[in-house]
């Protein structure tokens, strides 16, 4: 059977899909995935999941939480100065960047 493989590059990082392996069970899937997906790039951890247990939804099927104006969720909509607190300013900066990338997609 097929197993989807997810690789964690550094401790504390997210596991990212990196391919698959064919194996009869989870133990062998882990053994194979370590070599196939962990030997050439820095790897801190690997997950394997049966391919038919990985379910998906994508942009063709959903608007991922909204298509009408939801700018009330974004710090950038609010016309007050956030510089009194670095953490608030940082959050705004990150949201501005994400909004920019959202605009591009």
């Amino acid at each position, binding site marked *: *059977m097929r197993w989807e493989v997810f690789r964690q590059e550094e401790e504390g990082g997210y596991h990212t899909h990196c*391919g698959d392996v064919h194996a009869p*069970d989870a133990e062998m899937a882990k053994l194979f995935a370590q070599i*196939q997906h962990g030997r050439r790039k820095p790897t801190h951890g690997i997950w394997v999941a049966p391919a038919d247990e990985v379910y998906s939804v994508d942009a*063709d099927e959903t608007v991922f939480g909204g298509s009408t104006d939801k700018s009330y969720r974004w710090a950038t909509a609010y016309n007050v100065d956030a510089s009194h607190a670095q953490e608030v300013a940082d959050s705004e900066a990150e949201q501005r960047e994400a909004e920019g990338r959202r605009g591009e997609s």
Partner: protein
Amino acid sequence: MDIDEVKAQAGPRAFDPSDDLPEEYRKAATRMIQFHANSEIMGAYLERPFIRQAPSIDRKLAFSAKVQDEIGHAQLLYRAAELLGVKTRDEMLDELAEGTGKFLNCFHYPMTEWAETPMIAFFVDGAAMRRQATLKRSSWEPYAHAMDKVCFEEGFHVKHGEDIMRELATGSKAEQRRLQEAFEEWWPRIIQFFGPTDDKSKHHDFSSQVGLKLMTNDQLRTAFLNSYIPKAEKYGLEIPDEPRITYDEETGRYEVVEEDLDWDEFFSIAKNEFEPGRGQIDTRAAAHDAVKWVRDALDGYETSTRSGAAPQAAD
């Protein structure tokens, strides 16, 4: 989607498994990627005896790793092809074993001595890398994605090949002579790696219109010659007189006289009818069959341990 929409939307990584693509696209992409995956295996098969013969531990390690990488690439590529929904990985592997699976011309020829290894590891892999770099813009996203990983891993293959060549080229007179002989034997085959100029290839137009093919055979060949002729000359190799290749000062490009190459042999290879290539296919098929019992054992194990589930269809 219909074919016209595909042509209109085709661009780098434009299509992925969530798209409902017409059969013509899916078959063309499958054919291309399957050829690539088969070539990884048959290239690895051609090189594997040189793991044993390597004249130093480090060379042995490098060859083992290179061959291993190639099997890894095959694994990725069969998956990228399988996602098109035309053939499964098992079907493609069976076709390769039966002799209907097609693969690169160069891997139909025998390689018997160490001095030949740079022909594959430097020149052929160099040509492949050039092509693979362009395929990062394939319209089939899984293939483009696989190319990211392949290109990441493959840099060492070409450098390893060059290093072996450098060593021979700066070695004894006998080593230099054998390197030159190997080069003369392989050079026409390497040029033919790129196929005939596109008016002779039946698949080109469609493939480029749908974003599967990013450069013409001619463009790729020219790019290769531009980079690799100077390299060959740097190591003191004499470029054979045939095929006639002329350098155009103005355009900075190399032109090849196609009639100087044996296209009959090339097309016989393309049908898996060339004798030495059949030998490679058949011996590998025998090895593949000899371990079928293991695959069957694993399938049996899997079926019996999936608790409560009906036997799963083979992957």
